[in-house]
């Protein structure tokens, strides 16, 4: 079966876009083929800095023939009808139609339309220009003379040529001709920019790949990565060193070369005084080079590995020399920063934070640090941290933002703070908190465990969340410029993975009051004046950090309408923030594999604001429903709820009252007496188990309901003739519903 070879040859494609582009090309072409009924055996896509290539193997030579019969008018119909039929079916005379008959309609014409399958190259020539023109590059551009005209071709960088051939292995394939904005497809490409710049004529993928290989182009990015990794390890090993592996960097450098040649350079040992992370970041970010460590001591070595795109005439001497020059200059800068930064203590840098605006409405970094420090201190006892250390950690946490090093390498924020904190003799936990308060940065990032770090990390994230909620800048759809979802997930993971029992409401109350008042009210000049007026009032001691409710009360008391309105607005935003947390927790639990219906069942209970307890409850509920008792109780619950729903609707009233035990005892059957007794006990037992946070115990208590509930439905007719008895039985059913509500809202459970 024949193969398709497609190559799009351009100027240098950004490394970060290559892999995705190759995948997109494969998908777009194969989808378009399949959509037209062309199946294939396999497809592979490749990318280098200068080309995207695609092989689709095992395509048919042409598409399926299509035979269609179209019914026409009756024989003897008026000429207009006959002509219309001929036109529609593409026939030139009625002799070309055959005549069929059926008992109802009599004799009528039938046109047989046979469409032979179209040749694959024709279809390719039709599909491909559109794919090229609408290719989903993250950023694309216009160029050259063609860009005079509106709507000219866009590509990631100028596109120079296209190869498109199609044919079987045994014969010479044909060039699939098409044109995109003046570029005509052919069978010619070019090799490596410097090592083999000449033109290469190719037939099909089987000779394309080796021809390029001879022309010093490795089309497969994974093979380039393997070559780099292999050579890098060999070079390192020969020097008794070990490569510090870096997958992201490897992927990037593989996208910067068509023919990788790894070379080793070195730098002055004196630079090793700089923290290894700094050396690595400098060399990686600016030079895209790997660093090495001593295989014995594990310490960073004064060597680096660069990946060049050239088999150099001088064996790479010039290239290494040039790279060493640049590395030396970069490390000199880093060393200068490292030494200069140590001359100023972190706490003396705080003043400078006053000039860094965190957000227009949320003040400067300095003000933010003040808030975080106060909050970290308040949180400390709840997470088992020393309040002094937590406050200190928070106070120093952002100081490294104004160091030279972090100014140059923002990605070293936190880490540099830790180094400088340690050097100036801070407590280990304080130094650790300075680094770790940013964590966790994503779902796979490590969660800090040192209580001081936990306090500062929580304070940092809560302040951010509360602040942006207070000024109504919450994430919408895919837009989350302040990474607030990540911050909320961070809080959730900090709490859960450290087994912290905390009420969200109380966690958020104070920072909310503090930020909300400052931020929101500063938004409205009038209100700001009001707050100031209040602060100077006899109420001042009460309102040091007034809660929103307190503030509202004060405004009301003083009959300040604007203030009261604002306080109410804040209240709504506070509730919204809680709902956001609930939402993020659901997402988190779902990602962890929890059933979404069980999460809903727990969330729909009132006052769920302890993250750890919610999770424990969901877990216990899941385990309970996996048991036979659990499943049967759920069935019993549903039966009760169904009957209730129907009867309550019919009667136009609810049966929420407690069942009358007198009626049960006097008129009830033995099964309903038993149910009433067990219900009463189970309800109380479950409630007190929940109180003691023993969710397993609560489920156990409920499981005792299963047998009496089953027996009740088995033997007792709910809709008794005696209206009093009937009503009381409905109340009993309601009681089953109530009992289950001690652990979850069973109505939300699915399956």
């Amino acid at each position: 079966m024949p193969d398709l070879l497609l190559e799009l040859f351009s100027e240098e494609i950004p490394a970060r876009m290559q892999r995705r582009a190759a995948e997109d090309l494969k998908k777009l072409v194969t989808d378009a083929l399949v959509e037209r009924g062309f199946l294939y055996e396999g497809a592979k896509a490749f990318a280098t800095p200068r080309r995207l290539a695609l092989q689709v193997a095992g395509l048919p030579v042409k598409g399926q023939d299509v035979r269609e019969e179209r019914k026409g008018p009756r024989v003897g119909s008026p000429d207009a009808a006959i002509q219309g039929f001929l036109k529609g079916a593409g026939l030139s005379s009625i002799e070309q139609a055959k005549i069929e008959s059926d008992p109802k309609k009599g004799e009528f014409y039938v046109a047989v339309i046979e469409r032979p399958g179209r040749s694959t190259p024709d279809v390719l020539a039709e599909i491909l220009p559109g794919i090229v023109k609408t290719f989903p590059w993250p950023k694309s551009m216009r160029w050259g003379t063609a860009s005079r005209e509106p709507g000219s071709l866009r590509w990631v960088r100028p596109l120079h040529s296209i190869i498109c051939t199609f044919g079987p292995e045994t014969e010479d394939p044909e060039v699939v001709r098409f044109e995109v904005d003046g570029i005509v497809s052919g069978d010619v490409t070019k090799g490596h920019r410097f090592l083999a710049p000449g033109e290469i004529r190719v037939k099909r993928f089987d000779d394309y790949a080796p021809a390029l290989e001879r022309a010093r182009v490795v089309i497969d990015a994974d093979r380039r990565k393997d070559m780099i990794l292999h050579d890098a390890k060999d070079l390192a090993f020969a020097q008794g060193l070990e490569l510090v592996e870096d997958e992201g960097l490897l992927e990037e450098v593989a996208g910067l070369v068509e023919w990788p040649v790894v070379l080793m350079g070195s730098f002055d040992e004196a630079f090793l005084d700089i923290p290894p992370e700094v050396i690595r970041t400098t060399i990686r970010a600016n030079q895209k080079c790997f660093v090495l460590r001593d295989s014995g001591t594990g310490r960073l070595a004064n060597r680096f590995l660069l990946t060049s795109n050239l088999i150099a005439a001088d064996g790479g001497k010039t290239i290494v020399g040039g790279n060493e020059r640049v590395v030396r200059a970069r490390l000199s800068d880093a060393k200068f920063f490292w030494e200069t930064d140590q001359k100023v203590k972190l706490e003396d840098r705080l003043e400078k934070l006053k000039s860094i605006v965190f957000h227009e409405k949320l003040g400067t970094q300095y003000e933010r640090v003040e808030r975080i420090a106060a909050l970290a201190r308040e949180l400390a006892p709840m997470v088992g941290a020393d309040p002094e250390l937590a406050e200190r950690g928070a106070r120093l946490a952002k100081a490294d933002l104004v160091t030279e090093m972090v100014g140059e390498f923002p990605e070293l924020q936190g880490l540099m703070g830790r180094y400088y904190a340690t050097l100036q003799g801070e407590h280990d936990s304080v130094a650790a908190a300075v680094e770790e308060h940013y964590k966790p940065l994503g779902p796979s990032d490590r969660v800090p465990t040192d209580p001081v770090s936990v306090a500062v990390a929580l304070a940092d994230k809560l302040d951010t969340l509360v602040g942006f909620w207070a000024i109504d800048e919450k994430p919408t759809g895919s837009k989350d410029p302040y990474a607030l979802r990540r911050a909320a997930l961070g809080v959730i993971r900090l709490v859960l993975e450290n087994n912290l029992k905390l009420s969200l409401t109380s966690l958020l109350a104070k920072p909310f009051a503090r930020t909300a008042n400052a931020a929101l009210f500063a938004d409205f000049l009038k209100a700001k004046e009001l707050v100031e007026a209040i602060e100077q009032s006899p109420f001042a001691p009460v309102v040091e950090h007034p809660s929103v409710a307190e503030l509202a009360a004060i405004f009301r008391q003083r009959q300040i309408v604007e203030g009261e309105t604002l306080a109410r607005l804040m209240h709504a935003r506070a509730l919204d923030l809680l709902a956001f947390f609930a939402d993020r927790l659901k997402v988190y639990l779902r990602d962890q594999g929890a059933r979404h219906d069980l999460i809903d069942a727990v969330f729909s209970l009132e006052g769920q604001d302890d993250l750890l307890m919610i999770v424990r409850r969901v877990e216990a509920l899941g385990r309970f429903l996996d048991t036979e008792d659990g499943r049967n109780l759920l069935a019993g619950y549903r039966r009760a709820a169904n009957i209730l729903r129907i009867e309550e609707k019919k009667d136009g009233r609810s049966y929420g009252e407690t069942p009358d035990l007198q009626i049960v005892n006097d008129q009830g059957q033995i099964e309903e007496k038993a149910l009433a007794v067990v219900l009463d006990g189970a309800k109380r037992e479950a409630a007190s188990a929940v109180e003691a946070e023993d969710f397993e115990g609560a489920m156990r208590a409920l499981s005792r309901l299963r047998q009496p509930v089953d027996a009740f439905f088995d033997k007792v007719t709910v809709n008794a003739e005696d209206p009093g008895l009937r009503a009381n039985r409905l109340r009993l059913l309601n009681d089953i519903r109530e009992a289950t509500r001690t652990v979850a809202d069973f109505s939300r459970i699915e399956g």
Partner: protein
Amino acid sequence: MTSEPAHMNPARSFQGLILTLQRYWAEQGCVILQPYDMEVGAGTFHPATTLRALGPKPWRAAYAQPSRRPKDGRYGENPNRLQHYYQFQVILKPNPPNLQELYLGSLKAIGIDTSVHDIRFVEDDWESPTLGAWGLGWECWCDGMEVSQFTYFQQVAGFECSPVAGELTYGLERLAMYLQGVESIYDLNFNGLDGDRKVTYGDVFLQAEQEYSRHNFEYADTEMLFRHFRDAEAACRQYLEAGEPKPGSNDNRHLMALPAYDQCIKASHVFNLLDARGVISVTERQSYILRVRELAKACGAAWLKTEGGGLAA
């Protein structure tokens, strides 16, 4: 370049480097311009780039442009940083299809042999918020060092470039340091001569770096500068208005796009000085950049109504 005398060799002469690039690009049909006679932050500000990039008319130019970055001054103490340095700027509109090859040819002309040097085109998209301009391209690396910027202009002064121009910017001092193998800018041989007759970059510019760093960071008169900013902004608007085609007239050309644009350049440089003096807060910064951009956009719009901008006379 074997026919050149030794003192013109780009590998030993800073001015030899400039002259070689000029000659090379002259051969590619560029007009060789002299630096624009105003203080600019980058070669792109020269009207030969900013304004000529707009409109349909073909254009090829090259020139060295002294560029001022007041904030980058280091009192002459840092071997790699200057508040005044040279860029060599090339613009070709529309970009020829072989612009990359032409660029590599220019490297060859200044003595960078691609059989031993590793030349790479590394993604670097360019954006100038003050000029309302952006483009896609690369930083060009030679043995791990960035030696040029290569950009296909997509938009300038808020207008789509039609056709697109290719822009090349060489950082001359850095390139010369590599070619000459020196570690400090100030050690660059300026005139390529030896002994008594040798003039270094330091001889020419060290004192200026020291004096201007003092000026930029400590003494530049901020009250005056604020005033100059307002004046330049007002003048720019005033000239733009005065140059507008008169209603009812047959002549629909704008008559003063270039003088107005000078005021935009001026505002931009004054802003950079104020920024270096540290008297512009983070929030104000944005609004100043926006104000300059508005001027640049208005000048671009005016330019498109001139003959140079493609308006049929």
